[in-house]
């Protein structure tokens, strides 16, 4: 648990810089890099791409159109006009020949009239051709043709004049020679012009096809470029908008599942996603704080309960102590009071001996009372003040024997058995405190056993120096549940009800042993008896003060 908290706390610290108090001023919806702007820009870019692609295609198409127009308007027109011109020219030459064959005046007149009309048509066709724009090569050929046609027309006019005048043979001779030569020249030139024009038209046609092909390629290229641009935009939007949003959604899910150990990406971003990420981070920090405060609350509750339990135990101990103290005082007081009542009742028939005996008993009860007071006060002093050890050399065997003797005297019928092995002749320690220690153990052994049940006091030297003393009884024993509290102040065994005691003795035993650097063990079974094992070091250490 604590590990999790630590990690969570670290996470909070790490993100603290991102989303602490500076978070609020960083809110800039619609800032330069906001998603709204980004999406609008992307849409605009799409629109521009479509328009650009369309415009480009249109432009290329108009190019193709222009080339075909050129073919249609210029070259085809030229070919038609040249064809007309050729026809009219042939007709004119034919008209010239017809005139030569005409004999009557009417025929001549009709022939001349027809020639004039044909001449007008030739001129009209020439004008039409001249009104068109032409390439330099065509223009040059046409100019040559026009000059040659004009020469032919002069000769033809002479032929016609001769024919009209009736000089048919001269006219025919001229028609067959000079006129014919001039006409053939003009006709040749026109033929060359026709070829030239057809070649130009072919060339233009090929150019148009080429332009169409090239424009088609360009349009396809533009489409490819536009496709790449669109893909790039989609990828960019996926990377910069869609994925971070999904990531945040995942983080939110994890938070919802109470996993607070997550790092939130994108909190440095300026846009709406950054804003969302910072909000999620705040949310996460709140979740962490909540978890922490829950833990704190649980800890506090536990601490409170512990304190309460301690208080309760303390109160119980105090009450126990008061009850025991009161009991200890009341027992000799009962004797004193009973004796006093007896004295009052026997006042008239008391013998001096009787009086002496009763007074002695009262006094001994008082002695017992003061002894209890001293013992209680002494215990309290020992407990409340800092107990001081006054170490000196002593003989452990003598000390143990004296303790046993005391208890044989005070507890009538107590069967205290001494089993001493080889003991050190002198030890170093506070004999008064140690006397109290063993006295307490013996008193317990006697108190919690049946009258006459043996109590063994076994002592021997510990291997490596020091004293090992067993005090064993066959009394009521110590229940398992009391074992842990045995040496607590005012604690009394749950089966010790009905046996006088203040709950201080074993606490003092533990304190005295602590002062001497010793230790105590307990082996006990409820109903079978207890053995207290005291380990006392040789005592060469410096006198110790209790804390």
């Amino acid at each position, binding site marked *: 648990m604590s590990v999790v908290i630590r990690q969570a706390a670290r996470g909070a610290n790490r993100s603290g810089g991102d989303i602490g108090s500076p978070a609020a001023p960083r809110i800039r919806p619609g800032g330069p890099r906001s998603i709204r702007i980004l999406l609008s820009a992307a849409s605009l870019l799409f629109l521009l791409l479509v328009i650009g692609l369309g415009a480009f295609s249109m432009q290329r198409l108009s190019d193709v159109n222009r080339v075909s127009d050129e073919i249609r308007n210029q070259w085809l027109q030229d070919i038609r006009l040249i064809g007309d011109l050729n026809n009219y020219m042939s007709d004119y030459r034919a008209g010239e020949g017809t005139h030569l064959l005409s004999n009557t005046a009417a025929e001549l007149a009709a022939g001349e009239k027809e020639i004039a009309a044909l001449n007008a048509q030739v001129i009209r066709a020439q004008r039409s051709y001249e009104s068109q724009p032409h390439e330099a090569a065509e223009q040059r050929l046409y100019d040559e043709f026009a000059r040659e046609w004009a020469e032919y027309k002069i000769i033809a006019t002479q032929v016609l004049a001769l024919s009209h005048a009736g000089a048919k043979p001269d006219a025919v001779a001229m028609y067959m020679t000079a006129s014919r030569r001039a006409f053939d020249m003009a006709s040749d030139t026109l033929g060359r012009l026709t070829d030239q024009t057809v070649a130009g038209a072919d060339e233009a046609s090929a150019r148009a096809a080429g332009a169409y092909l090239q424009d088609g390629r360009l349009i396809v290229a533009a489409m490819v470029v536009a496709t790449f641009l669109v893909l790039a935009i989609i990828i960019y939007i996926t990377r910069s908008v869609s994925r971070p949003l999904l990531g945040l959604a995942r983080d939110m899910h994890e938070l919802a599942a109470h996993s607070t150990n997550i790092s939130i990406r994108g909190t440095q971003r300026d846009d709406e996603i950054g804003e969302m990420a910072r909000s999620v981070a705040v949310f996460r920090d709140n979740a962490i704080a909540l978890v922490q405060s829950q833990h704190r609350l649980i800890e506090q509750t536990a601490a409170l309960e512990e304190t309460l339990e301690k208080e309760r135990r303390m109160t119980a101990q105090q*009450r126990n102590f*008061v*009850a025991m103290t*009161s*009991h*200890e*005082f*009341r*027992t000799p*007081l*009962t*004797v*004193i*009071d*009973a*004796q006093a*009542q*007896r004295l009052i*009742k026997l006042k008239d028939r008391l013998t001096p001996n009787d009086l002496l005996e009763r007074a002695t*008993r009262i006094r001994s*009860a008082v002695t017992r009372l003061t002894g209890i007071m001293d013992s209680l006060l002494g215990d309290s002093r020992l407990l409340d003040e800092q107990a001081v050890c006054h170490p000196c050399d002593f003989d452990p065997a003598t000390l143990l024997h004296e303790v046993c003797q005391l208890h044989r005297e005070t507890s009538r019928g107590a069967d205290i058995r001494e089993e001493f092995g080889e003991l050190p002749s002198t030890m170093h320690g506070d004999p008064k405190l140690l006397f109290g220690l063993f006295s307490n153990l013996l008193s317990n052994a006697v*108190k*919690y*056993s*049946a*009258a006459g049940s043996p109590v063994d006091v076994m002592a021997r030297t510990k291997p490596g120096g020091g004293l090992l003393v067993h005090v064993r009884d066959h009394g009521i024993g110590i229940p398992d549940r009391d074992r842990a509290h045995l040496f607590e102040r005012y604690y009394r065994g749950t089966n010790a*009800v*009905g*046996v*006088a005691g203040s709950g201080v003795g074993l606490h003092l035993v533990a304190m005295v042993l602590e002062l001497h650097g010793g230790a105590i063990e307990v082996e006990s079974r409820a109903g079978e008896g207890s053995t207290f094992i005291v380990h006392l070091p040789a005592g060469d250490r410096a006198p110790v003060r209790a804390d």
Partner: protein
Amino acid sequence: MRKKILCIEDDPETASLIAEEFEERGYDMALAHDGQAGFSAVLKLHPDIVLCDVSMPIMSGFEVLDRLTELTPRFASMPFIFLTAFGDRDNQLKGRRLGADDYVVKPIDFEILDTIISGRLAKVARTELWSQQIDLGDREVECLTWAARGKTSTEIAQIIGTSKRNVDFHIENACRKLNVATRVQAAVKAVTGRLIEP
């Protein structure tokens, strides 16, 4: 007839002072110095009343009373009084809840203790007066006791060594003296009136 008081008290001096005082007040005194000995003394001596300390070696006063309660209905009419130096509320409550008839805290005022004892015994005295008036014969008591223990007339005849006819005769006599119609009624009345111990 002098009443017998059993005093269970681990402090010998206190015990002997109580004995001295109450012998003078006209009681027979028996002493026991720990719980175990006290419990045995109850069984052996059938005292009329028990004064018992709480804090004692081997077996506490509470345990003694507990063991006696287990034997109910025997000693059901024997008053049991705690006499203890534990004056605190917890112990007093515990003692009374265990069924002690009284709980007297030391030091003892003999006058007051005597009132308590005679008060407790007085209730017993009335029933004893009644039992004297009923005046059941020994054989009648014997037959009624076995009847109360669930034996048939034939069985009782075997147990006490007489004939079934005689048993029936004694029980009928007892019914008449107790003024009841059946032997079941007779047994109940005799037990409640402490004429017999089932």
